[in-house]
């Protein structure tokens, strides 16, 4: 079988004249399409500007948990690096380590300290003093609690934090409309 240069093959078996004419070309309008580059670049620049305006450098300090819905507030300031105590409907955690059961804390009316939490916060405080010997200890802890948690649980966590030397409590919230933002 001899080898020959390939010709136009596609759609040639369709027995319709206008299809044959269109496939063969024959001086008709070209089928090339130019991409409109200028509107495309305009679109990309607009997208970059929008994303730059909504960029937040402190957003990664605190992650939204799936089982924890934080309340919304408007008069807020930016987050800072600090130990994170999370209170969800099931457990209380310090930097993702389990400290206590929320239901157990909510069921007992007596103001008691959470020993595990106090011990771990004291350890964090000692570590901080070793790592930053010349800086004063701010005693700040971030409290990330579910919006439906009883204040009794929050109170016990705050009491435990105060016992460990963390007297400044920052309540993590979703920033609502009209907020101050930034410090």
């Amino acid at each position, binding site marked *: 079988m001899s080898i020959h240069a390939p010709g136009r093959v596609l759609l040639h078996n369709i027995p319709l004249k206008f299809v044959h004419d269109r496939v063969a070309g024959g001086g008709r309008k070209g089928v090339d399409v130019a991409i409109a580059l200028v509107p495309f670049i305009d679109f990309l620049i607009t997208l970059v500007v929008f994303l730059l305006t909504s960029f937040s450098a402190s957003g990664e300090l605190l992650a939204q948990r799936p089982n924890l819905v934080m309340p919304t507030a408007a008069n807020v300031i930016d987050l800072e690096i600090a130990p994170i105590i999370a209170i969800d409907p099931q457990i209380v955690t310090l930097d993702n380590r389990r400290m206590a059961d929320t239901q157990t804390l909510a069921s007992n009316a007596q103001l008691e300290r959470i020993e595990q939490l106090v011990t771990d916060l004291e350890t964090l405080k000692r570590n901080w003093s070793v790592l930053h010997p010349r800086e004063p200890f701010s005693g700040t802890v971030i409290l990330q609690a579910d919006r439906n948690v009883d204040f009794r649980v929050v*109170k016990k966590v705050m009491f435990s934090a105060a016992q460990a030397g963390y007297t400044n409590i920052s309540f993590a919230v979703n920033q609502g409309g009209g907020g101050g933002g930034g410090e």
Partner: protein
Amino acid sequence: MGGVSVEGGHGGKKSVDSEIPLVPFIDLLLCCIMFLLVTAVWNKLARIETNQQQPGQNAPMDQPQEEQIRLFVHVSPTGYTLSDTAGVRIQIDKNGDVYDQEGLREKLRDRRQQEPNRRDLIVTADDGVIYEDIVSAMDIVVGEGYEDMSLTPPQM
């Protein structure tokens, strides 16, 4: 491709036409978009700052502690109470199941007119009050200019 055509370049001189390299420019924009999309934060998180020390608690020991009127906002299951140690006590009841936030805002605004320089206020709450209502009260307090806010349980 985008180009800029400038008259000239005759007489064997080098042409002054220049081409803007659009493909690398589009590549750069796409890289920026990818980076910004990956690092984008769609729900902005922030904080309300409080402390557990009552005003005047950390005063130096060698100085006599100044007698100071303390201002309180108490959140209870029945509503807000705005009070101070001088004996003022204003009850702001709930409207049905909803806390009267506008009422608290008005009372704090009135108090601000009496004491324009005050920055400290103590928020207290009862057991059984849900956290969201306390955050709402703290939000109003900070919004009315009481930035040196403390949150303490009544018995602490």
